[in-house]
């Protein structure tokens, strides 16, 4: 038999939106009339998820099913442990649950870093990281007692929430459940749709026009020129083209990812779910800390809440560091190193993490210095613009590292 599988990767081309919006119509009519058709929503999600993982991607489909069973067992076992009467709430049990929960992600990161051809099976699946983030967050909040019960159905929908399955934004279980359990009022839903349409079209502009221009139209040409000139000058192989690559790649990265995130938020709004925004004009940040409050926000907030804060509390309780400054510095390095490793086990992702940790520590030092010398340091329109300019360039440089282009330039591989 010769099957012609239809395989649809989320938001990959304009036609996709036509299928998606047609499938959304019954849901929209329902929500407009104050009803949430949960069964239809489940079928809709499953069909579109199936379309991601069918055909050539079937091994990923198997992986996601196995993964979900595994994570469900861990989460509900831990929930049971935490909610039984007089739960001992041992720290080691909590650690064990978290380690087990991130085990598949860790394994995939290591396996994908192995030389091509040494791993005989397909590892991971589209969206593994993001589902893991959601899952770890639930385990942590269960530990805190903030989550006392989890409905398996809602939980599955939360983990597999179709619009955000491939790359976020990362929602929180309690927030999701609140939206999911009710249907919005008609007025509110119309407002939701207003935003949904706006975000959708903003997303088109970002991803398919501006992102395309920088990423598909300009970037290959710049890369080619940079490699050609680089190879002829030798040494560090630097040229103005590398600088052009840096800015072009940064623009591409932002518009492509922000466009994608806008699609995810837009489709969520059509479904009456207020998935949080991921970007808030990151390039007008005044400093690096400000930048991380504006760039890939759901990820950075996740890292802040579940790694930075947790570690800080832990270290304070154990009195690991005498000085608070040293403590925050160590926490930053921990956070950004983990983020670097999460991006992939390659030198440039790890350097990217170290670079940002260093930048944020320098920024902190500068803020402390500024506070002490308030009177001597001028503050006016120019200094504000200069701060934005400087931050922008530091960030773009970090993206140049992140892009892996330097690796290609220097070592010939990415």
């Amino acid at each position, binding site marked *: 038999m010769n099957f012609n599988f239809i395989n649809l990767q989320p938001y990959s081309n304009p036609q996709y939106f036509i299928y998606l919006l047609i499938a959304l119509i019954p849901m929209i009519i329902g929500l407009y009339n104050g009803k949430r058709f949960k069964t239809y929503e489940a079928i809709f999600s499953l069909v579109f998820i199936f379309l991601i993982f069918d055909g050539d991607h079937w091994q990923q489909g198997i992986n996601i099913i196995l993964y979900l069973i595994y994570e469900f067992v861990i989460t509900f076992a831990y929930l049971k442990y935490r909610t039984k009467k007089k739960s001992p709430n041992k720290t080691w049990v909590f650690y064990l649950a978290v380690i087990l929960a991130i085990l598949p992600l860790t394994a995939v990161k290591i396996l994908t870093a192995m030389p091509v051809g040494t791993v005989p099976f397909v590892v991971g699946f589209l969206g593994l990281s993001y589902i893991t983030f959601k899952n770890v967050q639930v385990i942590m909040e269960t530990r805190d007692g903030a989550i006392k019960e989890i409905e398996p159905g809602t939980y599955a929908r939360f983990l597999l929430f179709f619009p955000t399955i491939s790359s976020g934004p990362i929602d929180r279980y309690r927030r999701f459940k609140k939206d999911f359990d009710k249907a919005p009022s008609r007025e509110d839903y*119309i407002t939701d749709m207003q935003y949904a349409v706006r975000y959708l079209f903003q997303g088109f502009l970002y991803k398919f026009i501006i992102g395309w221009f920088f990423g598909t139209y300009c970037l290959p040409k710049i890369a080619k020129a940079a490699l050609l000139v680089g190879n002829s000058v030798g040494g560090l192989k630097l040229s103005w083209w590398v600088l052009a690559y840096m800015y072009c790649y940064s623009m591409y990265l932002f518009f492509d990812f922000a466009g994608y995130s806008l699609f995810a938020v837009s489709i969520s709004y059509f479904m009456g779910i207020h998935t949080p925004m991921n970007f808030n004009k990151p390039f007008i940040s005044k400093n690096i800390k400000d930048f991380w409050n504006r760039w890939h926000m759901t990820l950075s907030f996740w890292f802040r809440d579940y790694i930075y804060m947790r570690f800080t509390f832990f270290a304070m309780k154990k009195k690991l560091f005498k000085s608070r400054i040293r403590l925050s510095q160590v926490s930053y390095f921990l956070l950004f190193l983990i983020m670097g490793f999460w991006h992939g086990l390659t030198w440039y992702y790890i350097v990217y993490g170290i670079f940002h940790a260093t930048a944020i520590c320098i920024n902190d030092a500068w803020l402390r210095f500024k506070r002490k010398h308030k009177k001597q340091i001028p503050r006016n329109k120019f200094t504000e613009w200069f701060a934005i300019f400087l931050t922008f360039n530091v960030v773009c440089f970090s993206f140049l590292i992140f892009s892996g282009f330097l690796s290609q330039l220097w070592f010939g591989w990415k």
Partner: protein
Amino acid sequence: MNNKRRLWQIFGPVICAVILLIVVFLIPWERTFSNKAIYEAANSQNTTVFKGVKMKQEAFKRNYVPFYGSSELSRFDPLHPSILAEKYHRNYRPFLLGGAGSQSLAQFVGMQGTSKQLRDKKAVVIISPQWFTKQGQNPQAFDLYYSPLQTAMFLLKANAKSKADRYAAQRIAAMPTVKNGIIKSCLKKVARGQKLSDWDRFLLEQRQRMLVNEDNFFSTFQLRNRVNKICQKAKLLPNTYSKSALRKVADEQAAMHTNSNNLGIDNTFYRTRLPKKVLKKLKGSQKHFDYVKSPEYADFQLLLTQFAKQHTNVLFIIPPINAKWAKYTGLSQKMYQESVAKIENQLTNQGFENIADLSKDGGKKYFMEDTIHLGWNGWLAVDDAVKPFMATPNRRCNYDLSNYYFSKKWQNKKNVKPLNLSNKEALKDK
């Protein structure tokens, strides 16, 4: 009421946008191009032009002749065919089609839009034995040149009973660039020998309409403007055409541009593409290259089929390899000649007799611009064939094709006897 109004405010613009989109894409638009735009396009070797249709159609209606080839077309020294045609006000202008990696299959797809315009006319093909690798058409390069528009055109004309069309459909469908969708499913149908249904044809026509408009709107974007370059280089040529004077220019220019190395390679190419490390790696690296067994021979047959359908009069040019370079990389000249013999047999046995075989000239002085690309005196040798070819009047050419050349047997055949091309009568007897 209020809610209804809000809904209109939200979705009204969306509905307008959708209507506008349908109108823009599905209405048949017409447009013309200025002479200047076409001249730029003809010399740009731009993939948008290659993949498009409208520009080429317009050009071939005028005095442009397609020069199908690959990366050698971008060697714009003063003796380049485009510059010679411009300088000496020839009755034709080359329209350069192809670039690095555009092999027979990509060229075949790229020819689908202009069969009407090339009927009973002329074309030049620079056919490099380097295309005839074990793999044939490089899939990554195909990605660059793949034209969905012309594939749709091919499908709408395809005959499921024809061996050539079935083979072409199967080859194109096997390329990873061709993603699932109406085009791929129709390709698979044709490859299996099934007729397309009316519904398939309807969908294909809509898709084609959209792609035609896309081509109309966007084909003038991103043109690489080489007009200034042509004018500047043309200044280096003697004002009246003279073979010996041109030869002198070629020698002078080549001497000046290859003085950094003793391989006879253009200085810039040598500096940027062959830094020491790369050069070292390449030494002896091509000993095992084999151009004799290749699926490319069958893909090449597609090209011939297309020319035969159009009754186009074709001049084939077979370029050599820089002999010093071949020696350095270990590429076997014997193998090279074997593949040339195979190509020439395939051509002459089916009635394609205009062949300029330059394949043994790789050792001549300043014949090559760099490693495998024609330059200076090589271009002059090309002109020696092109000039008289263009002087003959257009006529309808008939060819005698054989499906044998699609077979695996031919693709893998070795030891094909070399031909003596100078003896035209002997060729006919075969």
